């Protein structure tokens, strides 16, 4: 079911694209009234989307290289059609799902989310996509399932970065089932009403706005439902730095740098840093998922 969550955005013009998008958001919000409402952080009103150019030219996608300029340079070679996602594990209908079949059953909506990278930079992205819960419903999650595991494509002939053992390829990420089912958690297929640029994880990526960006795995080819906490790529690479949860938390520092503040993309050379918000500003929406957990231990 789409439109379970809506932004409370003001019609604040940044670029033409943003104006277009804000209007669409407000309309979506109006349409969504009466449906299941999810509380939104008050500061959502201040969200100003970054430009399409910034979003598509500044990202990490190590399969294409570790420099920020590598993904936009090399991801063009990625073949994103045809595309299918293998859904397996504890589901009623395992199998290879063609992307167009998935999309034909989904309602694409627009959501403006904060995006906070573990490297202490952040941006605001107007995503297009659908809730992960809707995709999981398609496959039928069995009651024994507790976690969702995601896997990124590995295609060495199109991904020059996988020649190097920067990480243990394929890139793997995971969520607890309740995190995956949360209405904020979405599968993105586009930004600014356009198809996702390849470097941003085309044709299908995860977006979990209250977690550090690396959790929002790109170019997904496999989704597995399981009852065990999966070993995820960054956690395997360095467990003391990248926890399974990796919720945005200004009180828990990365061992090598502070997470208390962030540099907002697009602010220019003299913008400095701004304070980082707990759960990236989505505390009202998601804090209840972690009731009783020590977030310093389960970082």
């Amino acid at each position, binding site marked *: 079911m789409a439109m379970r969550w809506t932004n409370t955005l003001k019609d604040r013009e940044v670029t033409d694209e943003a104006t277009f998008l804000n209007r669409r958001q407000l309309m979506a919000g109006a349409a969504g009234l009466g449906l299941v409402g999810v509380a939104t952080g008050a500061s959502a009103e201040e969200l100003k989307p970054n430009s399409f150019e910034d979003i598509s030219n500044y990202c990490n996608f190590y399969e294409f290289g570790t420099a920020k300029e590598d993904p936009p340079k090399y991801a063009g070679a990625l073949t994103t059609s045809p595309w299918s996602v293998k859904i397996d594990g504890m589901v009623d209908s395992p199998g290879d799902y063609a992307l167009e079949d998935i999309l034909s059953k989904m309602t694409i909506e627009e959501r403006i989310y904060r995006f906070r990278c573990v490297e202490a930079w952040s941006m605001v992205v107007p995503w297009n996509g659908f809730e992960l819960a809707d995709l999981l419903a398609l496959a039928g999650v069995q009651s024994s399932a507790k976690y969702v595991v995601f896997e990124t494509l590995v295609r060495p002939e199109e991904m020059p970065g996988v020649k190097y053992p920067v990480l243990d390829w394929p890139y793997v990420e995971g969520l607890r089932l309740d995190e995956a089912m949360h209405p904020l958690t979405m599968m993105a297929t586009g930004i600014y009403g356009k198809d996702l640029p390849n470097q941003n994880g085309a044709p299908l990526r995860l977006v979990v706005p209250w977690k550090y960006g690396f959790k929002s795995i790109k170019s997904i080819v496999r989704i597995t439902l399981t009852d065990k906490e999966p070993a995820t790529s960054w956690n395997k*690479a360095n467990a003391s730095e990248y926890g399974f949860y990796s919720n945005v938390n200004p009180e828990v520092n990365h061992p090598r740098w502070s997470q208390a503040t962030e540099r907002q*993309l697009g602010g220019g*050379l003299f*913008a*400095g840093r701004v304070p980082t918000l707990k759960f990236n500003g989505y505390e009202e929406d998601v804090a209840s998922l972690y009731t009783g957990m020590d977030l310093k231990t389960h970082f």
Partner: protein
Amino acid sequence: MAISSSLNSAFRRVPTWPLYILCAAHLSGLFYSAATGGMGPEPIKALEHAYGEMGLKLLVVTLAVTPLRKYTGVSLLKFRRALGLSAFFYIAAHLAVWLVLDVQVISRIWDDIVKRPYITVGMAGFATLLPLALTSNNMSLRKMGAASWRKLHRLTYLAALLGGAHYIMLVKGLQLEPLVYMAVILGLLAARGRAGLGVSSDSARQLRKNRS
């Protein structure tokens, strides 16, 4: 060694001051580019990295001067002070961007220096370079005497090792580039070790002769 001697005689005709002009122009060019959107949407980090990496490169080049002369006869000794000082200027600019444009808050700066090992190591590297930059002038060389001056300036190796370690420690995942820098620095150190750690007396003479 006809090539090396003709190269050396060509170098003798080239003054060292244009290196400082180049360095200043490049430093400010990078700053201008970062300030005007030429370095992408996160110019603070981009400028910080550009200055830091250039500083490390120049440190490596500075360290390569002696082995180059030892193994090929080509002598860039005349330019070594300008190269070393340029490295220092880039690294000072790298630090300044971090202090003034990036972290900004004094308590956070101190926190980072104390708690973040890669920053501790980087600061130690800068602290190592500081006395070298301050004593890079002719007067200091005269005052200290060539032997103790040379001894002090061997700290360049330590500074390069700390800089290389700083780079390795700050990247995410297993990345090649910082390891390559470290390998080159260790290689230069080994080459120097084989050639004997002391600067030969003729290079000290050369150094004094070339003060400009």
